[in-house]
């Protein structure tokens, strides 16, 4: 029942996320990005720089209004920079329209109802590839692949609004999957979902990465960060105030307090026992249990 942490990435990204020379091409380059609207009155993003490499799973956290959604909307061109540059899959976003960038960056909106509309799940899944100008055979093949990957066989002929909301969330991701973008942006994929659906989505994210995709998740769900994500970008007041592994971010009490976020319970427990364990905080139940179990005398709990 407990999730296991993905194996740590060989080179832990550090600081501003810049890679050393020769580390390979970046999937996403955000270069000193500033975004201002309302005629200069609102500074939604303030000199944000980050580089994401292919195959990374990156989480973006922060309160509403911190700029996390503004940041991700620059990745597929929904927003254009006021200053600075955003490059995705080698293409500078100001040079292309959203529809063109959609072939490289798949943006899954938080509410699947905003994206689903067709008479059946099958037809809806084909909408993206059809817009890309693919021939019907190719479209059908991609739809079949998506149905298999996401386990949608039982609902393929149903109208999207007739299926349960958790299923619709999956269809929403599948509808972007059929476009085969290199980069996925998921907006609150597990928010408000029950445990089973959350686990399914976590699993899907890992499989997308195994497929070679880069996945960027905007989420309030700290559990998602702990279970699945390699790297966490913490947004606050339009600024990127931390770009670290989940473990490091959760252990940074100051950053967590500033953004009013709380780590998952297990990490909180690990942090409080840190004086005794002397280790960086655990991200999963198994990890903490294995860390303290061997040397622990039986705990006679005082709870009643």
């Amino acid at each position: 029942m407990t999730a296991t942490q993905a194996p740590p990435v060989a080179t832990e990204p550090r600081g501003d996320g810049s890679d050393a020379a020769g580390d390979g091409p970046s999937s996403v380059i955000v270069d000193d990005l500033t975004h201002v609207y309302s005629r200069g009155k609102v500074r939604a993003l303030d000199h944000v720089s980050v580089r994401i490499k292919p195959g990374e799973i990156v989480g973006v956290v922060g309160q509403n209004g911190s700029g996390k959604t503004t940041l991700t909307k620059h990745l597929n061109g929904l927003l254009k920079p006021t200053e600075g540059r955003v490059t995705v899959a080698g293409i500078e976003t100001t040079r292309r329209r959203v529809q063109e960038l959609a072939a490289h960056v798949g943006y899954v909106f938080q509410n699947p109802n905003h994206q689903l509309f067709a008479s059946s799940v099958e037809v809806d899944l084909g909408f993206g590839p059809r817009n890309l100008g693919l021939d019907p055979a190719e479209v059908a093949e991609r739809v079949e692949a998506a149905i298999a990957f996401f386990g949608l066989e039982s609902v393929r002929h149903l109208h999207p609004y007739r299926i349960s909301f958790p299923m619709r969330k999956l269809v929403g991701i599948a509808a972007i999957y059929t476009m085969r973008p290199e980069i996925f942006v998921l907006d609150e994929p597990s928010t408000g979902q029950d445990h089973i659906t959350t686990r399914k989505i976590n699993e899907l994210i890992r499989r997308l990465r195994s497929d070679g995709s880069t996945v960027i998740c905007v989420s309030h769900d700290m559990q998602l960060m702990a279970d699945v994500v390699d790297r966490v970008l913490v947004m606050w007041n339009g600024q990127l105030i931390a770009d670290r592994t989940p473990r490091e971010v959760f252990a940074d009490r100051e950053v967590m307090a500033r953004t009013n976020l709380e780590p998952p319970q297990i990490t909180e427990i690990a942090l409080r026992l840190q004086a005794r364990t002397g280790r960086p905080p655990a991200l999963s139940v198994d990890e903490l249990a294995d860390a303290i179990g061997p040397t622990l005398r039986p705990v006679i709990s005082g709870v009643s």
Partner: protein
Amino acid sequence: MPSPAPIIEFERVTFQYAASEGHALDDVSLTIGEGEYVALMGLNGAGKTTLELCINGIIPNMVMGDLAGTIGVAGLDPTETPVREMAKTVGMVFDNPEFQMSQMTVAEEVALGLENLGVPFDEMRARIAEALATVDLVGFDDRMPLALSGGQQQRLAIAAVLAMRPRILVMDEPTSNLDPIGKQEVFAIAERLNRENGMTVVMAEHEVEVMARFADRVIVLDHGRIVANGTPREVFSGIETLQRIGLRPPQATELAVALRSRYGAWRGELPVTTEEAVDALEATMIGTAR
């Protein structure tokens, strides 16, 4: 400690939505005492919303279907009593904050229920001020509800219900659309109302750790049936049941279970909160060589 007088009673309640197969509620029996904070948990579609809609009579008065069994809420029968009568006793808050807004100003939104109940103007003003203070929206009277943030809207929805002075507050996943700060605010308000005002709270939620901390009792639903009903500790210690239906207990509990089963390193009751786990572990770990 004597058990509180029952304020909600369900006896063998079964409900099937019109034009739907399968029972949304299947032979549900439960008793909720006045002043209890009850968490309703279960997967999507387990029947939590259905159960809650039966409490104030929306089911069966507004939602069509077959309802069987007996329901008693504060001495009234919601199946026979008009919803507007039940509204004086039961306040309901739903998961989408914006979909509960309809008025031009915050004050009018809070006043809506009072206008419908024919509450005199002076008393209305007093109740509105009181309700807004409870949810920390003082001074927001002339603001537009649809221009507020999600967290503010949800607090407004709560105020709109509180002004009617209900004895029972029923909430259906009220924090699922809110950011962490908004969630904290809503949970804090519910807890305070329960503790200070003796408000009976029935809350459907997925946030296991939070419910373990605040709820007096947890009722777990699966496919319309009650599969667990007890204190958080009792319910979350039933690991097999939870696993079978796809729920998980708080991580503090999972930790203790893992320590017990893998290392024989936990005896006695399982913790359900951070404090309980940390206190028990620290006490044992003093003197443990590292």
